[in-house]
């Protein structure tokens, strides 16, 4: 792996292995949401697991077709909501009973019915934080750069096209065989995605 060879030749074969573009996967492009769902199901049936599908809007059944089973977001939201409720109750109880007890209108210090509105609001607030930040964290966002953006037509994934990407790190991935497999699914185009 001498550095000279880079200067001597510009052909891909002569480049050292580290300079050859690594492949992230194969991207097949479809025009219709139903096609990409069918393709994803076929790929899953053929044994592919490391794959992802991309669409300009949510497509019914697509996540299930690529083998997505466990959605942990509702749990995150539940934990957020409970945290909010406990925080609010503790805050009000601690300040009104422990830290600065003061009699107002002859009411008990721990006048819990009056504590409910604030408790409700903080429950909703923390649950909403859970939903939004949980969504971002589980999706691995923000992530401005991702290999799939190297695919030439990928800008259309946010407009009108549907994509299925079988990743090179899949056990069954083989550049030629996987391309043949995808070709049989009748996509509009197949491109190699560089990593």
């Amino acid at each position: 792996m001498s550095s000279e060879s880079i200067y001597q030749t510009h052909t891909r074969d002569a480049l050292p292995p580290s300079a050859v573009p690594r492949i992230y996967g194969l991207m097949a492009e479809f025009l219709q949401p139903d096609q990409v769902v069918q393709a994803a199901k076929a790929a899953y049936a053929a044994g592919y697991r490391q794959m992802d599908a991309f669409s300009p809007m949510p497509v019914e059944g697509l996540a299930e077709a690529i083998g997505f089973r466990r959605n942990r977001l509702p749990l995150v939201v539940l934990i957020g909501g409970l945290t909010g409720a406990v925080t609010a109750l503790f805050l009000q109880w601690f300040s009104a009973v422990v830290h600065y007890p003061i009699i107002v209108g002859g009411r008990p210090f721990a006048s819990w019915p009056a504590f409910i509105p604030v408790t409700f609001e903080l429950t909703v607030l923390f649950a909403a934080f859970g939903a939004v930040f949980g969504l971002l964290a589980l999706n691995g966002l923000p992530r401005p750069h991702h290999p799939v953006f190297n695919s030439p037509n990928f800008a259309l994934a946010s407009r009108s096209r549907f994509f299925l990407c079988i990743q090179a790190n899949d056990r069954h991935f083989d550049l030629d065989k996987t391309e043949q497999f995808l070709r049989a699914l009748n996509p509009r185009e197949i491109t190699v995605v560089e990593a």
Partner: protein
Amino acid sequence: MAQATLRHDETGDVPVLGPGHTYGTVTDKISSIVLTEPPRPGWIFGFAVSFVLLLMFLFAVLNLLVRGIGIWGVNVPIGWGFDIVNFVWWIGIGHAGTLISAILLLLRQDWRTSINRFAEAMTLFAVSCAGLYPLLHLGRPWLFYWLLPYPNTMALWPQWRSPLIFDVFAVSTYATVSLLFWYVGLIPDLATLRDRAKSRIGKVIYGFLAMGWRGSARHWHRYRTAYLLLAGLATPLVVSVHTIVALDFTVGIIPGWHTTIFPPYFVAGAIYSGFAMVLTLSIPLRSYYGLKDFITDKHLDNMAKVMLVTGLIVTYGYLMEAFMAWYGGNPYEEFMILKDRPTGPYAHTWWLLLLCNCTIVQLFWFRYFRTHPIWLWVISIVINIGMWLERYVIVVTSLHADFLPSSWGMYHGTIWDYMTYYGSIGLFLTLLFLFIRVLPVISITEMRELVHEVHERGHARGGPAVTPGTAHP
């Protein structure tokens, strides 16, 4: 611009989407307002007028900060004037946005799709205006953080049993959740703008805001869950916010405030005025930007029906208030509701309120008025005025004549009150005009879903199918 009849599709349903649209055309149409069109003369004119009003607002606020709230008309006994009237009015307007985006989503009303983004923006800007008023009314707004529970050297805590503290939490939670809900809805559309922006600065800014959204199926799955859960959270939230606003009044023992009907009829009134504001804004918008395929006559018709229902609930509230004032046997309440309001010094506001809120809305029983944009627009403005008057009547008349005639007084807004009020409309409109230019006014993602659904339904009926992915590739 007025159309005599609703347009029908071949099955007899009034469509929620114009014919012939594909995933590509809805994307191009909606994003072009932001990305390719230069500002139109009407936009520049509207923005300029709004901005002048905003400057007037800033001037009035500056004067307020320098000289104190003595420049307003508030006095003893009328300690709450325009500031609280405007606070309740603005926050009520905001509620329709949440109703459209959250409650109608849960009820699977697909006609909400093309107005929800716009209505949510309206919510956000209305809440911004609303939130300023109680802060300005503090007298020393720079000490606003005294409202919050924080450890301080005086060892003081908020009074948790007061609705005014409930209000701090309700309004700040509402503003935050509305912002989050709006932003989550925007993320895929920001990705669309990132991919379609021509200018470098557009790519960078939209790319930054889109956070690298790439439309992965796994991401969409969680996204849908998050969106539904946020809608489920926002639904009780919006009811709680206006209930708490109503509690600000009902917990006080002032005759005219101290009544249990307030929370439900405040919520209905909020939705009523909010839908009126959505119509006031969307009718010129859809006409000027050619969005009649997306905001169709069906939307106008449905919104008018919602206004009719909420208007009737509000009317019922007024009737019950009057009935209970008589039936309850409290002489102070009876005097306030049955004598002072209809015949006292503020009688003109009360009669005008009945005319605007209870009488004119009855026109919506007729399809003619529900489907003619000009009529709808005029009536929606009348209802906005009516709902403002309602809050004026509740706040001012109740305070001006309570238990002892020795403590009676009169209130009139000063020039500074009016400048702050109209100025806040300028703030609201300025934000809206900017929003129209920099973000998609209609959710592009949800319109694509609507295209898909309309297409599927067309298949099911064997109707002529435009294949949404192929035409205009």
